[in-house]
């Protein structure tokens, strides 16, 4: 999980205002938009990968066991994964402060 950089200062920008790194929005934390957090029940999961395909962020990533794990640094808590899971393995849990 990358370190939250927040907003950059002008001193860190490249000369000519170029963006030198493709896909550098991966440093930007969108996880703090969330009010509900998806929780995976690995016993019910059949590793179909629908949550991974239909996540509007790409927040889901496969791990070495083949389960798809939500990266909470990016997850905005929309609940699509819980709604489409064919086995009901994902539940949305209220995020506690």
């Amino acid at each position: 999980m990358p370190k939250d950089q927040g907003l950059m200062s002008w001193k860190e920008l490249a000369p000519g205002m170029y963006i030198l790194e493709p896909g550098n929005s991966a440093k930007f934390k969108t996880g703090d938009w969330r009010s509900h957090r998806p929780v995976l029940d690995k016993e019910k999961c059949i590793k179909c990968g629908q949550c991974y395909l239909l996540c509007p962020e790409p927040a889901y990533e496969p791990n070495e066991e083949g389960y798809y794990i939500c990266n909470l640094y990016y997850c905005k808590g929309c609940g699509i994964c819980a709604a489409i899971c064919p086995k009901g393995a994902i539940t949305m849990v209220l995020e506690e402060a």
Partner: protein
Amino acid sequence: MRPELAKFKPLSIKDLPKEDWIAPGHRACQGCGTVLPLKLALKVLGPNTIAVSATGCMEIISSPFPYTSWKVPWIHVAFENAASVASGIDAAIKALKRKGKLPKKEKINIVVFAGDGATFDIGLQFVSGALERGHNFIYICLDNEAYMNTGVQRSGGTPKFAHTTTSPAGKVIHGNITWKKNLDGIVIAHNIPYFATASPAFYMDYMNKVKKASLVEGPAFIHVYSPCPTGWGSKSEDTILISRLVVETRLFPLFEVIDGKYYILNRKVDKPKPVEEYLKLQRRYRHLTKEEIELIQQKANEEYERLVKLCEVFAPPKEGTKEETKET
């Protein structure tokens, strides 16, 4: 049937590449149904792609300075001319190949992501020009049925009776007064090699359509239905449900048109669900009366039956392989 489509083998969920070419950390709303088709399209097209964006949600959410979510080359010029920019890129690639600066056989996909405002209204003339000139590019229209980026103003793609901030629902006028513009008809009339409609709920169908669009020589157009929870007042988790219901209620049938003459219906809806089921999930339709719902139902059935007839009369010839849509 075109030779490149006759030999086409549909992708299955197991052959999909692992990489995503749009990075997380973009600023789309929760449950955005517009960034989802964009992500899936880039997944199929791969790294050898040049993306062009028209002004709209997908441009602003992916590129707030100093961040970018694109991992493929990306260009944005102005609201109306995304199709012209893609034409220019195509011409440049042709010139570089002729001069030997690029390998002749290298396949570079040019893909345009434009919203409904940039396609139905502002960029229509430019889209028409690019389709007429026959440039080799893919145009993906992400249709969320209003100008969502600037705060839900009515566009040519807004359906009848939908509430937007410039067509508010009041006591006398109930939302938008015009029917949705028949963009599909306009695009098909250009006799382009490939046209398709798609919905992100049927994601394998959609990804196969993007793959086909990248295989054909010449312009390809994909009209993708993309729900917008913010503008439509729907729940963020219902994005996929709504894009499934819109197909199952016959409001947005999934079909393909090849060379402007062969019609293929991808999903036959013999037992449609009532449109009310789709409408009640969205706040933009909450003012509807029974007669208005009936009117929407009638129009949906009429359009669908017209399409079924077209698919019967203009079916592709038998010797080509028949495209089967994977059940999702």
